């Protein structure tokens, strides 16, 4: 890739206190990973593999113990974390919406922190509601608990996009949704990623989702990136863990092909 990476991890390590006998647990172990501008990267791994930790290191929700993380060429340690986070969108697992704020206020939160004029914020919220396919008049004044899970996550995506970030970080964004909603939302987000020229890093434990949405996949196991590449490259990888992760989608695809003849032609 000719372009300089937008996000780069170089030999990054992160450990946490909390093992028994005061031992420290290694969450991320010497990870080097580049994410190019405009790329959609999925980080796949079991829970406890360090994938969420890796994501949090990008916007300084966590700081690494070793190595360095650069965003747009700058070492994140030299950037004020609050400003760093305001220019990166973050979508949390099951929404992370503020339950006491209306949909409007949830979406408007980062623009307000940035001090946008009220009229501009209102226009932006309308625009975003259209973008994530929520009815302006119907949803604007609702509280999060009055929305379905899918609607909440649409608001979560809108909130992350509000301040027009170039980078989107997503932590198991569609994990808690029913399969149909999950599929729809995933596809819609992928379209947004393209049309808005975003760079997206998505953490998921679901290889099928990763294969369907991402340009490139990094597989994590016990704090290390054990494989990375486009789906076809992964398919040729002979790491046993990668093979195991790919087994389920392969089997599902074969079953579906058998059950729904002609489906593969579409």
């Amino acid at each position, binding site marked *: 890739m000719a372009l300089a990476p937008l996000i780069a991890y170089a030999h990054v390590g992160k450990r946490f206190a909390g093992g028994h006998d005061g031992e420290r647990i290694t969450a991320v172990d010497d990870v080097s990973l580049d994410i190019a501008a405009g790329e959609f990267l999925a980080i796949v791994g079991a829970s406890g593999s360090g994938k969420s930790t890796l994501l949090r290191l990008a916007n300084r929700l966590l700081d690494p113990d070793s190595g360095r993380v650069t965003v747009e060429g700058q070492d994140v340690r030299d950037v004020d974390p609050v400003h760093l986070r305001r220019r990166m969108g973050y979508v949390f*697992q099951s929404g*992370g919406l503020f*339950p006491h704020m209306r949909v409007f206020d949830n979406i408007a939160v980062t623009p307000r922190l940035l001090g946008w004029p009220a009229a501009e914020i209102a226009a932006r919220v309308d625009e975003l509601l259209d973008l994530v396919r929520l009815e302006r008049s119907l949803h604007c004044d609702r509280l999060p608990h009055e929305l379905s899970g899918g609607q909440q996550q649409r608001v979560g995506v809108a909130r992350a996009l509000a301040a027009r970030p170039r980078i989107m970080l997503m932590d198991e964004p569609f994990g808690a949704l029913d399969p149909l909603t999950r599929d729809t939302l995933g596809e819609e987000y992928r379209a947004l990623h393209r049309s808005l020229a975003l760079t997206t890093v998505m953490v998921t434990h679901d290889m099928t989702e990763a294969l369907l949405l991402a340009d490139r996949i990094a597989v994590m196991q016990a704090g290390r990136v054990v494989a990375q590449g486009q789906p076809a490259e992964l398919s040729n990888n002979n790491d046993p863990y990668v093979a195991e992760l790919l087994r389920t989608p392969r089997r599902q695809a074969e079953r579906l092909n058998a059950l729904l003849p002609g489906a593969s032609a579409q």
Partner: protein
Amino acid sequence: MSFLSDPRWRDAAAHLPDYLGSHVQVSLAALALGLVISLPLAILARNHAVIRGILLGLASVVQTVPGLALLALFYPLLLAIASLTLHWFGFDFSAFGFLPAMLALALYSMLPVLRNTITGLNGVDPALLEAAQGVGMTPRQSLFTVELPLALPVIMAGIRTSAVWVIGTATLSTPIGQTSLGNYIFAGLQTQNWVLVLFGCAASALLALAVDQFLTLIERGLRERKRLRTMLGSVGIAALVAATLIPSMAREPLTYVVGAKTFAEQYVLSALIEQRLQAAGLQASTREGLGSSVIFQALAANNIDVYVDYSGTLWLNQFHRTDMPPRETLLAELKEILAKQDITLLGALGFENAYALVMPRQRADALGIHSITDLAAHAPTLSIAGDYEFFSRPEWTALQKAYGLSFRTQRQMQPDFMYAAVASGDVDVIAGYTSEGRIREYDLETLADPKHAIAPYDAVLLLAPRRAHDAALQEALKPLLERIDIATMREANLRASGSNANSPPAAVALWLWQKIGRQ
């Protein structure tokens, strides 16, 4: 006469604006101060286990101190601070009334607010804290836009608890000179006026409920974004505050303040003094229900202008004297000691309200007991009751020493109930007061004290330092000196402990004046 048409209701209602106003003032000021201190403390302490533990521990300890004791402790504390500031910075402040009451109540209000604020903030879902951080909030923005709003219901529950506590406890601020709804309760208990006691309790309960409701309205309005509710609640609180300012604005600042301790005789005498001053064309008001040691300090600090004390009380409790000169000598010497503090002992009223050992006349006759010497022989088979302080007073030690007294049992009692208890035989002997009206009513006998173990307790008029040269005041009070004998005072006290239209202290004071003014 039916219960509701009792004229004492009207009498009680007449004081309501003043008492209620002062009560609301001190409670809300204490609550506001408590909030201003405990909210930031709770916010700072929420993430530090050690500080949190220390804070909650301290607040809990404060909570275990009985309200009355906490209030009483603040008075000497502030007096000491005031004398220090006078010494160091050349100014002092009144350690009497509002300030000690407000500070003690503020301290009292802190625990529920601290505990609930910490609990509420720590109960916020960590995922939301991360979300707040993730969207780019500073810790401060996260606190104000996410954590505090989400913890609001729990915090408000704490504030409401503390409001109810403070309003209830504020009734105990009467003895340290803060007018409150407690004035009804203290006066009612002392003069056996249950209408007053009920009135005071009901008024403070209603006030507590009202404030609780207003706070609930504010909380629900904030949480459910219903402006109207928030407004209604705030208007309610604001109306209470406004209502409290009216009586304090109307109050005449330049009046003579007559102090009274917490028993019926004092209420009657302060009413009498007030009436005499008014008859002489002087503005006068009373400050009732003051604690025994508070009242002397208040006089010395010019917070009140005049009150009646008893020579023995001053001699023993105020000046800690252990010698026991004869009555006249003691009075003369007391006058000198007081003069050194610029306090004027204007003179004696003519009666003594001393401690005396009292038993039913029939029983005393039957046992052949007429003096404490006679009593000593029977004491090991008898029981004795005294007021809350008697058994720790020097008189009791002196009595035991002089007569070798040793009773089968001794117990403490509310002074009002002692006389009925000894008349009915529940106890055999009581340490009563010689001017008590019920001594005559129950046909009790005060036993002679041939060895003069009990100090003389002449009722004396004391004037504040700033009134030392106030001729008008002294002229108005002179007609009271040496005019009230023990029989008259007993009858007055008996009237005051009744429960009819003639028994409010002011009515008894009028009767008393008619009786002594014509002599």
